[in-house]
């Protein structure tokens, strides 16, 4: 894992002091709330419905047990005993007092963490593949590149007041586990003629105008990576729309200019910037890489004892092939049936930290699907690990099933929401669990947003649900056929929306259609793509 040197630590410490000073000036009345707002946002502090929310950055979703323990302690000390893992591999706390914020940031800085640029119109925390460095199918570990970009994007002097927020994802496998093409910039590390480089996709996103990012450059040499990213951002900062907040994301600029013209402008800026010598020394990447070197794997058993069916089910569902054949990546589901997706108690967070230390070389990952990964678990240790997870209510065997729902905080917490997301998620998972149909349905990605901003990724759900306000009542639109993976697609709306009871039933109805039509080995998504919307519409609205 990456470790701060004294430079990195000094940057974070300087930011804590800067924020203390800003909070002081706000309290002294030298800053109006309007002036303070972007500053607190730049430090991850939002004003929500009931309290402040603090979002903590987990760069590329990777953290160690000491950091995870600190996150659990913060939940208990400053929140109401909970932390909420988000779709951008971060954690947020929903019950924060403004006067505690600087102290929390100081606690975080002690474990090399921060809330820098987790909100505001700047480059946000960079996300990546949650199985990076562990999976069998990657070209290289994408995290050193993500770390290089983390440094570049932190406190960038030119790009702190962009037209709108800016999200970057970096992957290095053909399989996309980071929704890469639904980011403002998606970078795929690729190999061309024996050389490693970066493929750039620009202008993807969800929100009210979902778009899949077009590729604008198939290969950027590694010693020009930062310069190319800078060119992409500069064109956006200069020409991205600022007249309308809802048209300010880079996807709108790329769409309005056309990918070709945007690319032309980027290439022109890139040619200019190459002459400015802004690229970090190539040695920096070489310095970063060893931090992500393999831990000392050992050979061991490659099979588990399947005599306990509950354990066998969990192994089948929640463990993923590893690059070393005596190990797996184990997913800790934060989706217990009827629970709040992504929530964990302070105690559970500390338990996961302890288990990571014991069984996974001290490393954890946050998934964009709001679960936690122990990336390197010895197959021989799986039963012991599962036993402890189960005892801590962390053993739900439902990875990538209909119970593994992504949901935004919705109207229960969020000031922007039009409808509740959490209750809908709870009812759907309870419904399928009670009818014991989860296993039968196989991989089924269900995603729920409580408003058009799409934090719950409903556009990318095999089944998506969008909560809207219809004449003062919560109403839910159903959509089908989205995917955030390498087969990326945007979901289409089925037709008129439903009330809460209606949408829970509607989800069951569309799964019935799937079971009726599915052919061998097809997922819900595959069947939908084969048979189209009509049979689903017929069943829903008949």
């Amino acid at each position, binding site marked *: 894992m990456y470790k701060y*040197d004294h*430079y*990195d630590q*000094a*940057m974070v410490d*300087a930011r804590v002091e*800067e924020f203390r*000073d*800003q909070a002081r*000036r706000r309290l002294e009345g*030298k800053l109006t709330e309007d*002036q303070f707002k*972007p*500053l607190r946002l730049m430090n991850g502090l939002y004003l929500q419905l009931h309290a402040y929310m603090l979002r903590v950055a987990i760069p590329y979703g990777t953290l160690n047990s000491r950091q995870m323990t600190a996150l659990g302690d913060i939940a208990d000390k400053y929140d109401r005993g909970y932390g909420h893992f988000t779709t951008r591999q971060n954690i947020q706390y929903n019950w924060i007092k403004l006067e505690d914020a600087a102290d929390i940031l100081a606690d975080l800085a002690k474990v090399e963490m921060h809330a820098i640029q987790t909100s505001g*119109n700047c480059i946000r925390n960079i996300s990546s593949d949650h199985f990076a460095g562990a999976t069998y199918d990657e070209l290289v570990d994408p995290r050193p590149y993500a770390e290089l970009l983390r*440094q*570049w994007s*932190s*406190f*960038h*002097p*030119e*790009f*702190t*007041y*962009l037209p709108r927020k800016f999200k970057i994802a970096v992957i290095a496998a053909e399989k996309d586990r980071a929704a890469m093409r639904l980011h403002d910039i998606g970078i795929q590390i690729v190999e061309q003629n024996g050389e490693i480089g970066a493929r750039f996709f620009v202008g993807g996103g969800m929100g009210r105008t979902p778009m899949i990012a077009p590729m604008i450059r198939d290969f950027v040499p590694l010693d020009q990576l930062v310069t190319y990213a800078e060119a992409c951002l*500069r064109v956006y*900062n*200069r020409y991205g729309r*600022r007249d309308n907040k809802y048209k300010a994301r880079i996807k709108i600029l790329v769409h309005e200019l056309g990918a070709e013209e945007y690319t032309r402008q980027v290439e022109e800026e890139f040619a*200019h910037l190459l002459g*400015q*010598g*802004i*690229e*970090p*020394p190539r*040695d*920096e990447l070489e*310095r970063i890489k060893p931090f992500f070197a393999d831990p000392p794997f050992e050979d061991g058993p490659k099979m588990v004892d399947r005599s306990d069916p509950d354990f066998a089910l969990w192994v089948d569902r929640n463990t993923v092939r590893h690059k070393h054949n005596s190990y797996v990546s184990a997913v800790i589901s934060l989706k217990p049936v009827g629970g709040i997706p992504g929530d964990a108690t302070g105690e559970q967070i500390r338990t996961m930290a302890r288990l990571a230390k014991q069984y996974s070389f001290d490393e954890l990952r946050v998934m964009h699907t709001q679960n936690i990964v122990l990336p390197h678990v010895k197959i021989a240790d799986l039963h012991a690990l599962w036993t402890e997870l189960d005892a801590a209510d962390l053993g739900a065997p439902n990875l990538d099933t209909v119970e593994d729902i992504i949901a935004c905080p919705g109207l229960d917490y969020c000031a922007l929401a039009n409808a509740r997301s959490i209750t809908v998620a709870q009812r759907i998972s309870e419904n399928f669990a009670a009818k014991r149909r989860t296993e039968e349905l196989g991989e089924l990605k269900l995603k729920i947003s409580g408003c058009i901003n799409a934090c719950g990724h409903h556009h990318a759900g095999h089944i998506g649900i969008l909560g809207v306000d219809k004449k003062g009542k919560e109403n839910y639109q159903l959509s089908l056929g989205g995917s955030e993976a390498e087969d990326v697609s945007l979901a289409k709306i089925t037709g008129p929306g439903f009330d809460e009871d209606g949408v829970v039933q509607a989800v069951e109805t569309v799964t019935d259609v799937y079971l009726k039509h599915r052919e061998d080995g097809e997922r819900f998504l595959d069947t939908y793509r084969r048979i189209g919307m009509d049979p689903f519409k017929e069943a829903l609205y008949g």
Partner: protein
Amino acid sequence: MDNSLGRSPDEVQFRFRDDEVADHGTVTVDACCDQTNATAVRIEPGDDARVLVPFLDRLALIEVNFPAYTDGRGYSAARILREAGYTGELRAVGDVLIDQLSHMRRCGFDAFAPDTPLDEEDAKRAFATWDNVYQSAADRRRTIQELRHE
């Protein structure tokens, strides 16, 4: 840097230059391109700073206006001008607040004329926010990555 920090006689509150304040009235970017004798120009957020590149030799002052601090186009304008070799005064005017000072300085601004005068002590701290920096910018400070590998 601290020595040069202080109020100058006009509306410029902070200036990091030793030469005399150029205070001829500014003209618009369009007028500057048409008028061969203008020596001071004012850039608005929607202007393309690059059209000034052919005229940089005769310009002694370029003001970049920030009607709202949230509009960050002026940061790109400033860097583009410095990258093109402009060495005259580059002045941030308008809604310039304490917390933008350090970034503006890095983008090449060397004079600041905020609409509302800023607290001197707060500003002094703000200019000194970063002991070191992660990116190469117009101030040409050696970056952390360069320091690591020297």
